[in-house]
């Protein structure tokens, strides 16, 4: 049984997640779409905090909300004038998109209903993973260690930095 406060918080988060993600793909101003994406990412960070993964929530806010959205805003301001609308959608492309989204919703919803025992699992007790266990798992090479993917991601980020500089540079 959850406390009343956490139920209220849950409804605020779930509603804002749904509403802002719908608005992010339907608004005609691109800068507003980026802002709604920011709100959706904040809602996801709150979900991580509610599920006791505090480190993950902090990473979500720092990297996604702080890094990626700022990158989006800079790119939008570089490539379009603020205030101009995108063209109205043709009914054909709108129908195609809505069809694909509804089909995805139905298939995934059917999969969810057919595994209803998993979907209705109650929240087990868990200790919040502290920084020591997170760090030991991230840099451990034994069982449950993530040293190899950690190093692979660091090489990937280096390659991404070099690639970004090379691609966006003026010739």
């Amino acid at each position, binding site marked *: 049984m*959850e406390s009343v406060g956490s139920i209220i918080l*849950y409804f605020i988060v779930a509603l804002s*997640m*749904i509403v802002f*993600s*719908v608005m*992010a*793909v339907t608004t005609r101003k*691109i800068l507003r*779409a*980026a802002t709604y*994406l920011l709100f*959706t*990412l904040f809602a*996801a960070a709150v*979900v*991580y905090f509610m*599920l006791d*993964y505090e480190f*993950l929530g902090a*990473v979500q806010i720092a*990297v*996604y909300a702080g*890094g*990626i959205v700022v990158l*989006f805003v800079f790119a939008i301001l570089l*490539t*379009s004038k603020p205030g101009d609308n*995108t063209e109205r*959608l043709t009914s054909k*492309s709108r129908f*195609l*998109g*809505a069809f*694909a*989204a509804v089909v*995805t*919703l139905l298939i*995934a*919803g059917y999969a*969810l209903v057919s595994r209803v025992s*998993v*979907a209705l*699992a*109650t*929240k087990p*007790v*868990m200790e919040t*993973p502290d920084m020591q*266990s997170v760090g030991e798992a*991230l840099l451990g090479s034994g069982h*449950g260690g*993530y040293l190899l*993917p950690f190093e692979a*991601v660091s090489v*990937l*980020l280096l390659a*991404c930095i070099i690639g*970004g500089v090379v*691609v966006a540079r003026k010739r």
Partner: protein
Amino acid sequence: MEITAIYYIVPALVMFCCGVYGFITRKNMIAMLISLELMLNAVDINFVVFNRYLYPEQMEGMFFTLFAIAIAAAETALAIAIIINIFRAAKNIDVRSLNEMKF
């Protein structure tokens, strides 16, 4: 009222479907990238929810999400570099008008 796993999965599912809709209907490349981020984020939430509700003694889902966030950041940075390069060459980033590989 008990908040079970499905209470988190359904908003994530709606978010994913919004991403699918946006990716198909949008013509601006940055708007398509925003839809892609929505889809990635919905999948991240699913990883975390299944980790928390089904295997709370392990941290696999949490680390998968952590690496997915890092890779999403790399992917976005590179994609925006490519988009800015295209904008410099073609003066717009509408996918319908980009039908040549070489300008």
